[in-house]
């Protein structure tokens, strides 16, 4: 075959039209898929529009500005039944975020502790941790939620006989009451001081790291951070005049006044989510630590590092790489599972949306809002965790 002949064949293959050309087929398949999807969507939407018109259900998001005319027991921002549906959705979203944020923090703490205890050389302790993990992981979350709800509302005594494990803390079937510092501005000042101290500690860490790279000198960052984080808020508190008054819950008539009250529904969903997710986090932490091979610790020992240093510089950073991606998905699971709040009546986003759907009949809009909100949360959390993961991931050079 001459050169020109083969060139001619090549041109024929690239420019000629043939049903056996994979690109032509690919194009045809894709056009077919698009036609099917568009056709299906058109059919479903035209059905939906006809159905909605027949049942005289409005479409669009105009309903959001109308008065919601239902009450919400727990609202972090001002809300009354005269507020708009949009406001109700905001209240629900904040309730979801509240339970998810508190739940994530507590579940991470508990889960890490249980994961480490399960690896402990102590036979008894590791068995107890294993039993906890196996039992919680293998039971539906909903069952655990119903159980906790009944523990609180059926088994706990009424407000008059409320259990008081610590002074000022009351557990009753109306929820958990906790004392809070009475002086609001002082509390705010201490909180601001705490944030300032955290920011300063981060600054010290960055400075110490730069100095170590430049000069080789080490700086006791951990001690400095402890002093800063403990000291600055205490100083702020002293500067204000060291107010010690607490707003204690106290029994007035049939209920409690003062302090903060966590409703039975909030406590239920929090307990359920924390215990359930902590079991999964414990497994993630355990697997992460086990994934760091023993040779790494041995090598570090041979280099003369101390136990604490080995943990801090060798084991934890490597375990982190394994743990972070899985931890992300556990956090997202917790956030999505908080939607089960609807089953115990905690007014989260899903249960508010459910109420509005029942009132207005605008199911499509209500469900779209739920989905859009959760999707946004999921994407934001994964974006953040991916960024964080990139920082701790193995850097191959």
């Amino acid at each position, binding site marked *: 075959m001459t050169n020109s002949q083969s060139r001619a064949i090549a041109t024929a293959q690239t420019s000629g039209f043939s049903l056996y050309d994979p690109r032509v087929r690919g194009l045809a398949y894709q056009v077919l898929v698009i036609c099917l999807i568009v056709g299906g969507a058109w059919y*479903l939407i035209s059905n939906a529009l006809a159905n909605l018109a027949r049942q005289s259900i409005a479409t669009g998001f105009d309903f959001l500005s109308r008065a919601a005319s239902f009450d919400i027991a727990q609202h972090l921002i001002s809300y009354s039944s005269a507020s708009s549906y949009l406001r109700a959705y905001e209240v629900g979203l904040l309730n979801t975020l509240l339970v998810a944020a508190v739940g994530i923090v507590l579940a991470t703490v508990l889960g890490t502790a249980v994961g480490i205890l399960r690896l402990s050389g*102590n*036979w008894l302790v590791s068995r107890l941790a294993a039993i906890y993990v196996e039992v919680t992981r293998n039971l539906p979350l909903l*069952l655990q939620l*119903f*159980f906790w709800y009944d523990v609180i509302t059926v088994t706990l005594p009424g407000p008059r006989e409320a259990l008081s494990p610590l002074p000022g803390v009351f557990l009753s079937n109306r929820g958990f009451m906790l004392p809070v510092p009475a002086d609001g501005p002082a509390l705010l000042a201490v909180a601001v001081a705490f944030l300032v101290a955290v920011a300063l500690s981060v600054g010290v860490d960055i400075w110490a790291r730069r100095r170590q790279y430049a000069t080789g000198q080490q700086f006791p960052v951990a001690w400095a951070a402890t002093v800063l984080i403990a000291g600055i808020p205490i100083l702020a508190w002293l500067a204000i005049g060291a107010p010690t008054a607490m707003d204690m819950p106290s029994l007035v008539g049939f209920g409690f006044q003062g302090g903060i009250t966590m409703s039975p529904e909030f406590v239920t969903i929090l307990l359920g989510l924390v215990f359930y997710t902590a079991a999964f986090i414990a497994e993630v932490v355990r697997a992460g630590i086990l994934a760091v091979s023993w040779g790494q610790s041995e090598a570090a020992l041979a280099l003369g590092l101390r136990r604490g240093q080995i943990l801090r510089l060798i084991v934890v950073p490597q375990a982190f790489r394994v743990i972070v991606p899985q931890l992300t998905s556990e956090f997202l699971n917790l956030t999505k599972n908080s939607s089960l709040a609807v089953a115990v009546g905690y007014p989260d986003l*899903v249960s508010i949306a459910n109420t509005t759907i029942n009132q207005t009949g605008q*199911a499509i809009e209500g469900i779209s809002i739920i989905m859009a909100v959760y999707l946004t949360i999921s994407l934001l959390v994964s974006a953040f965790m991916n960024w964080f993961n990139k920082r701790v991931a193995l850097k191959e050079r």
Partner: protein
Amino acid sequence: MPSEFQAPANVTLRPPVASLGPLGWLRANLFNSWPNTILTLLAVWLIVRVVPPVFNWAILDAVTGQQSAAACRAPGAGACWSFLSEKWRFILFGLYPPDQHWRPALVVLLIVTMLIVSCDRRLWGWALAAIWLTGLAVVFLLMAGGIFGLPYVDDTRWGGLPLTLIISVVGMVLGFPIAVALALGRRSELPVVRALCIGFIELVRGVPLISVLFMASVMIPLFLPRDVTIDKLLRAEVGYALFFSAYLAEAIRGGLQAIPRGQYEAADSLGLTYWQKTSKIILPQALKLVIAPMVNNFIGQFKDTSLVIIIGIFDLMMTAKTALSDPAWLGFYKEAYLFIAVIYFGFCFFMSRYSLWLERHLHRGQRR
């Protein structure tokens, strides 16, 4: 020449007493350091605080036999097993006509048998698909009846354990092929197909199951023509299968990504078509790699069947809650939840042990 430092051969020193036997084990495992001793003491304290009261409640003080709720409410009475002897049939089978209870019982037995049979590796392949399709057909005949002299029972009266199992296994059987298609689509070279699959998977994985179930129960009827109605159970099942197919697809994608490129290229160079390559070379290897994650997926999926009660389907969780709302038996939630907890735990624990065993068994070749 023997060294003068060699110990005499006839003297064997016994190890110290404290490092032998139970005492030695205790020292080595529970009291080998101060922190460990404190942990052990805390654990013992916890056990002493929890185990005897639970034992008393469940066994010593328990009320058994056909007794009334009043006997259970007597002061000092422990667990009320009478509640379960009164209600267990309702919790297991829901509103199914009591004289026909042998049918759902047989269905449970059949599904459990199929699950156990599926654990046998020799059957993996088309045989298993055939077993499941035939088995599910028999399940529906038994549950619904209407032929062979079996009275017809509407699916609004199905309930309890058989319904939970049916929702779960039908979800698996429907979801699996969708998941394989999605996983293949996500790795397709056709941009439109790939974008659609990624969009679907990420959308579904980003939202809670409840919203999908709401959608199935509230939105599907809106999207159908006026005269077409789909049963609520079927709608929930469709939503449920689609939801899990997205998660399963991600597990399967993990397996597809783990297949070395050489396998694809070898298949291409043999002149196999896309479908031949996929079904004969790629999928058999990829699926084997992800069996353990898939079983874990099934465990999560089985637990999540309980969510259907939010759209009012009468599964095991709902029958337990309904039994609890009987005015004569209010407040015996521990007994009811313990009963269904044992059932859920049994299935999940069995599956998780099986997946652990499988992982070890299947990777015997790769282990060093």
